[in-house]
């Protein structure tokens, strides 16, 4: 049966006298008769469900009007007005809960708990006053929807409708697609899932279809009356009631059974919808085989035997990794973030997150890790902990459907972890370990899984929530380790049909050539029914094994992926080095500098010195010659700045090697340069580049840094007997300092030549300021410096 919602409230209130800038929800208390009239109009048009005038009725929104403390009173008055209008009819009341208007951290500055509390207060007030549904609507952020849904389920016993608002690109503003939303919200306990606002009925049809295909809940949709135009400064929604009615059938065909209207709709629109839906035949909703799905804010990953194998990256785990543990202890999460990004780059489909470090507050660490990583990658996460508080913190902070790693048959885990899984809609990794220890045989493992699944089902978990761990023992200690695990996988497939996982590397503990054992065992397990291994994604032998197995097990049609990856891997990099070996040593060094191969130059320099070449010869014939070539190429646009800099780095490595071997040797000194970015200017990358190039071309550098005042520059130029003073300024506001410094240098009688540069400078400006030269870039600066001192 189709239920028809009402239409827009805001525009109706404005028509009835609500002034721009006034609080719409306050009317529930001050002029309830206006609100009742709007409700009555929609009821006469055929609405089955009316929505209370409480869209902005959470305390955070009401605070804008100084009404935050009256939230409960306002919401209850709204339900009262709706009930008055609905008296004597069968019309139901939905308590409308709109967004807070702010983003929840880390996307914004609103604390999750603060949002939760505001929604709890509102939901409780609406339910107590007699609402039949709670309608969380127009939500643009899945994390805010999670806060509102969790709060609503805790505050009330009535059904909760969750409607998100999708943009034209098919995602919410913070990036959630309808498939991901449907899966996340159904797991979290939404009773009805839908979409409203932002789009007209035509654009919402594919969204309704996707929602219906990805959950079993009834679907609701409340489109705008088309896409808005501004006419004479007023916003107008162009779709007529008649046209809206024409879309009703298509929306039902797409899967919606709750239909209403949002911005721009009127009682006439609702009447048109009601009329069109009068004798409509409901389509059959396709039955779905429950498949395990994990979600992030913006992505869904399905795990199933008929889908490609999913890699769970294991590297965000400080166990046995002193450096990582130390960093986490010091609250530096840089390595944690780096591991997350790089594992995804290496092919991880899901990331396991473990913050088990002794001596820290694991709850705080887990919350931070989950929050930070969810901002950087879009793969789903597994929360790996034995601490219930840390688990809850992670689940709350995670804007999606996580995997809990893990739930064993130990009483503690069952008692504390299962309720959390249900509450936060998480999937669980079932670990067949009990208080009695680790079972050695496949049958015992299967029985323990049965126990865990049964217990989980008592808490309301069901098919599609489970990932089973096959358990891996050490082959070196137990001859049957391999076969028992393979049999376990087979039993899981046969008995449960749920997907399975395992951490493989245990199999090879204590044996030589562990990668060989691991990757061989991996292939066997994939054939026996392993769907989502927990592994190191950087491990080439495992990745190769996965590629080959996919081709062998029919998961890679025509072995296409396998072939393409194999070709890429054997691409030869050796060709370049071969050429260098054939050259004489000085040419080899020169080529190495030109190519910017910093790692290889040191040994070549050592060889040259051993062969009897002097450091001056090496400097002149190999290094300087190389920089000259690079300079010419740069000037002609054949190479670019990063390449020039790589060559400079190689030069520097060469000089350092020479200095190391001949420490007493006087280093070449073409002249002394004092360089600075002028006062008030804090940009220094350009200046640093010029300094580096000059230094590596034989000049002695005194770098005064940035934001340097005139007196300091002059003093340093005199004290260091500078041959050249280099001045950099980036902005129109600081280039005037250049004139000041040049004047001060002249006044002090300093004989140094002045070269100026910086994005804002020009030859003309340099000339009028009295500079000796203007350098457009670092390479030109080196040439000018050389010429000036010749």
């Amino acid at each position, binding site marked *: 049966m189709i239920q028809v919602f009402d239409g827009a409230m805001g525009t109706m209130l404005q028509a009835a006298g609500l002034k721009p800038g006034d609080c719409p929800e306050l009317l529930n208390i001050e002029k309830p008769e206006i609100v009742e009239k709007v409700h009555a109009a929609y009821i006469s048009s055929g609405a089955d469900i009316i929505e209370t005038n409480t869209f902005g009725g959470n305390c955070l929104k009401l605070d804008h009007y100084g009404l935050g403390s009256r939230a409960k009173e306002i919401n209850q008055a709204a339900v009262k007005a709706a009930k008055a209008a609905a008296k004597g009819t069968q019309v139901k009341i939905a308590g409308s809960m709109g967004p807070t208007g702010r*983003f929840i951290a880390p996307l914004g500055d609103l604390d999750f708990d603060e949002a939760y509390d505001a929604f709890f207060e509102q939901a409780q007030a609406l339910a107590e006053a007699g609402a039949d549904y709670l309608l969380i609507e127009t939500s643009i952020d899945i994390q805010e929807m999670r806060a509102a849904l969790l709060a609503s389920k805790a505050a009330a016993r009535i059904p909760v409708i969750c409607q998100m608002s999708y943009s034209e690109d098919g995602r919410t503003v913070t990036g959630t697609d309808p498939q991901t939303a449907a899966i996340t919200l159904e797991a979290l306990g939404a009773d009805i899932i839908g979409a409203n606002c932002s789009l007209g009925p035509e654009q919402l049809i594919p969204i309704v279809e996707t929602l219906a295909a990805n959950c079993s809940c009834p679907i609701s949709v409340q489109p705008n009356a088309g896409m808005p135009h501004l006419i004479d400064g007023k916003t107008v929604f162009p779709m007529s009631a008649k046209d809206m009615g024409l879309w009703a059938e298509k929306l039902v065909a797409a899967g919606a059974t709750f239909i209403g209207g949002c911005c721009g709709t009127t009682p006439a629109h609702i009447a048109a919808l009601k009329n069109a839906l009068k004798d409509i035949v409901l389509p059959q909703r396709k039955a779905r085989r429950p498949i395990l799905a994990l979600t992030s804010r913006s992505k869904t990953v399905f795990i199933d035997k008929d889908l490609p194998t999913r890699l769970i990256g294991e590297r965000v785990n400080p166990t046995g990794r002193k450096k990582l543990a130390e960093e986490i202890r010091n609250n530096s999460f840089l390595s944690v973030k780096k591991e997350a*990004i790089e594992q995804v780059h290496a092919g991880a489909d899901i990331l396991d997150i473990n913050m088990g470090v002794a001596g820290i507050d694991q709850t705080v660490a887990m919350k931070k890790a989950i929050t930070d990583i969810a901002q*950087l990658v879009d793969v789903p996460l597994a929360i790996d902990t034995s601490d219930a508080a840390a688990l809850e913190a992670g689940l709350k902070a995670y804007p999606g459907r996580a995997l809990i790693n893990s739930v064993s048959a130990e009483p503690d885990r069952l008692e504390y972890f299962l309720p959390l899984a249900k509450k936060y809609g998480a999937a669980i990794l079932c670990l067949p370990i009990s208080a009695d220890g680790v079972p050695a045989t496949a049958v015992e493992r299967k029985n323990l899984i049965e126990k865990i699944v049964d217990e989980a089902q008592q808490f309301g978990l069901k098919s599609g929530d489970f990932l089973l761990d096959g358990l891996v023992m050490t082959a070196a200690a137990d001859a049957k380790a391999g076969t028992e695990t393979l049999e376990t996988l087979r039993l899981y497939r046969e008995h449960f049909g749920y997907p399975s996982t395992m951490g493989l590397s245990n199999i090879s503990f204590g044996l030589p050539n562990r990668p060989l054992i691991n990757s061989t065992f991996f292939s066997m397990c994939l054939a026996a029914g392993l769907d989502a291994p927990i592994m190191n994604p950087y491990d080439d032998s495992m990745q190769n094994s996965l590629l080959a197995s996919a081709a062998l097990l029919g998961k890679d049609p025509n072995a296409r992926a396998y072939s393409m990856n194999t070709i890429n891997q054997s691409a030869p990099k050796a060709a370049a080095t071969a050429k260098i070996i054939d050259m004489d040593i000085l040419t080899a060094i020169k080529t190495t500098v030109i190519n910017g191969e910093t790692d290889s130059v040191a040994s070549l320099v050592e060889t040259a010195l051993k062969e009897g070449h002097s450091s001056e010869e090496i400097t002149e014939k190999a290094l300087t010659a190389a920089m000259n070539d690079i300079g010419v190429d740069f000037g002609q646009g054949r190479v670019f*700045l990063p390449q020039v800099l790589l060559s400079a*780095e190689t030069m520097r490595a060469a000089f350092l090697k020479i200095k190391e071997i001949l420490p007493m040797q006087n280093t070449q000194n073409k002249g002394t340069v004092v360089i600075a970015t002028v006062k008030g200017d804090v940009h220094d990358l350009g200046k640093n580049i010029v300094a580096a190039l000059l230094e590596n071309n034989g000049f002695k550098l005194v770098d005064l840094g940035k934001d340097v005042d005139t007196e300091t520059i002059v003093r340093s130029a005199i004290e260091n007997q500078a041959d050249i003073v280099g001045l950099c300024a980036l*902005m129109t506001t600081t280039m005037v300092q250049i004139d000041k410094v040049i004047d001060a240098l002249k006044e002090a009688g300093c004989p140094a030549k002045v070269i100026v540069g910086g*994005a804002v400078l020009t030859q003309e400006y340099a000339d009028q300021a009295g500079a000796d030269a203007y350098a457009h870039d670092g390479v030109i600066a080196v040439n000018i410096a050389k010429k000036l001192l010749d």
Partner: protein
Amino acid sequence: MPIYNAPLKKVDHAETRRYAGLNKAKFDEEIIESACRDVQILAQPKGIWNLYDYDASNALVHADPPFLIEGKKIQKHLAASTKVVLLAATIGEAVEEEITACFKGGKYSYSLLLDAAATTAVEQAADELEKTIRQKIEPMGYDMVWRFSPGYGDWDIRFQPEMIRLSQANQIGISLTESMMLLPRKSITAIIGLVAKQEIFACEHKSVEKHDCQICEKTDCLARKS
């Protein structure tokens, strides 16, 4: 108006190349990728914006006190706008500290790439912020022209204090030096003109993905788009 700290899921490779002055040159792509990833890890993206009425005939933003837009190019750019958005975005100081440390350690080229990736990242943070702005202004019937910052064309940087005031950039940790430079350095302020949707097609500078270098006088800029 809300603070929005855009997640940085990827720092654009091509834009990083452009800001590094590489354009079509051959360069080890893995090193560029690595710089993009390091910036992704170190960046602390933040964004904020405010909406004001705009009187195009007088080039006046109706703030309290009002803000006069001075500069022919920017005035032309906003000629059809009836409202404006003033925004600010930053990726924080941690990246700058790493760039400086990197250069001191002799990794000149990598510092340059990090710097280019950081510039890309702050522009991306602003792009993402614009998405949330669009979500608010589209239901009102508006479209946006591309964002314009002090320093573009003939719009002088001496208006930065006003940009900070109107966008409330100080709330996300952005301040100004005496010489009108933003701190942290990888920060931007900008103005976006709002035009009634149906009039956007008549508008010269309608919202495109990336803005146009043609408006700028620095023809020898490393990063100029041809």
